[in-house]
């Protein structure tokens, strides 16, 4: 099962890759929008999380859970629910 920590790492790496902001500058409690993550990239992130963790996620997930911490928790819960079912 994917841990929240693993998902948080994946999200941080994704933000760093897409925006160029160094990973060590990305704070877990900061709004992802602050790193210049646009709406297109937010949807790209949702799709990448779906691919990686085999879950189906609402396209607007990043807007509901806009920090690394909140988003990784939300994805981990959904992944757990999917495997449990």
């Amino acid at each position: 099962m994917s841990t929240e920590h693993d998902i948080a790492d994946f999200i941080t790496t994704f933000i760093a890759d897409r925006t160029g902001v160094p990973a060590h500058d990305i704070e877990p409690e900061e709004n992802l929008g602050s790193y210049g993550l646009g709406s297109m990239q937010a949807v790209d992130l949702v799709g990448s999380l779906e691919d990686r963790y085999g879950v189906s996620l609402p396209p607007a997930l990043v807007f509901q859970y806009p920090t690394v911490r909140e988003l990784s928790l939300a994805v981990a819960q959904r992944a757990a629910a999917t495997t449990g079912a």
Partner: protein
Amino acid sequence: MDARIETDDLAAGLYDEVSALSVTDILQRRAERHPQRVLFRFLDEHGREEDVLTYGDAWRRSTAIAAVLAAHGGPGDRVALFYPAGLDFIVAFFGCLLAGRVAVPLNLPSRRRVDRCLRILRDCGCRRALTVSSLEAGLRDILSVDADLPLAWLATDALREEAEAAGIVPPPADERIAFLQYTSGSTSHPKGVMVSQLNITTNLRMMRTAWELDHTSNTVFWQPHHHDMGLILGQLLPVMLGNETVLMGPNTFVRQPLIWLDAISRYRAVLAGGPNFAYELAAQRWQPGRLDGCDLSSWRIALNGADVVRAATLERFAATFGALGYRPTTMLPCYGLAEATLFVSGGPVYEMPRVRSIDAHAAETEGRVRDDLGASGRTVVGCGLPSDEIEVAIVDPANGERLGCDRLGEVWVSGDTNALGYWQLPEQSAATFGAEIAGEPGRRYMRTGDIGFIGADDGQIYLCGRMKDLLIVDGRNLHPEDVEYTIVESHPLIKPQSCAVFEDDRGEQRRLVAVIEADRELKRALPEIARALRMQVRRAVSEEHGVAIADIVFIAPATLRKTTSGKVQRSLMKQLHQQSALDVIDVAVALDAA
């Protein structure tokens, strides 16, 4: 399938007849000749067919909207179009053109983008807006903050079942304005490119000829319809071709790019494309086992335009999807801009893209292009031959003199595809659209602001950058002064005129870099506050401009280079940054020590 075969001959028969007609005139003739033929299919977020529009339906629904529009106001009135991805947009757009109204396609305003949207509505003096029923209340609410802007709303999907309105006559392909394209200009000063009926017809014909397209050239597009590429290529070119086009929303593509490739395979598409990042994204998001059974062998033209074309991306894409029948000769880098309606150059088709490695130093210092096959060479990709309906010149921007092949200068374009100018900006329009080459009076050129050269051995246009330090992010123009101002305003310890923002274009990805000169006070404070300050700067720039600052570099007091008149020398700072020759304050070390 039967209906398709029956209509092929009818669609083919109109090839010559429609070449010089306005796009709505073409639609009417095709609707008369082959009404049942499918014009558009729209795919939902899972790639399933959600909606279909035939040529006959498109005409009927467009006339119903035109009849309502014609009952209010007068010819030339601007009408804003707020549509989600789907098939309601195109009939509203044609409705405007048939009623003699000027269409203004706009991005759906989020709360954050509402300011830009209001500025555009004010700039074009818009009094009427079209949308769909499901969005009307929300849009009214978002845009009601401005009391000076009374908008009359019409939800056009409510007219879906109306009968064809009688007496609607398409406009001729003349110089009347068909629509305004708001992609140029900054947020604070939007510029609406005035595109005429003649411009549209000319540009569509240019693409049809250059890429050898006809009614059999099925296409798949996902670009937003408020953007020139999505509108001209995705929504209007199909009408001239008489082909069948599959559309999907930009979000569908970005969330799952493989749906796009799957659609190309399922609908046997010949033409599909997007900016370079689309190919990058599709290759990144591919996984083994996905797309089994997908066959890309029908794909003959993979357009790559509207952004820098990267040789590495072309290779990666071919390596990833070659096994599915994709051929490297399918990739077709092209060049265009809204000021030229859309298309300027691209082709010849079915040949390998041209990749050259040039001596960057000679190009910068002498404006001369020499091949450099060593490690320091800069790779540039040819963006194709100019259309044979226009003339492209490379001009020295300093004195307006024409330059020969393999000489670096500004790209100038002349021909009927050049837009009429910017809406209500006569001076900027004259400067951009009415340029003349020294010693060649009488011929008007449009200045693109792009720096490039024409290859001596292949005649292709190669692009090397922009004039005026302009930053281009996701197809938007961003002025470095605006970003620098935001940075200075973000924290009291950052002083005015202490900052240079530029693009580092060395890697595969463009990165925005902010170099901030510390005064003594800031330098003393840095070890404590550097991390929080970087965060604050990023937050401010992202909120104001919606872009990421990748690198934030603090440099020693009095080391930011300025001209004698005090202007920040961005290109010099960029050069120093890339040579690692800046006097950087090493905050990380200071932090660890603390």
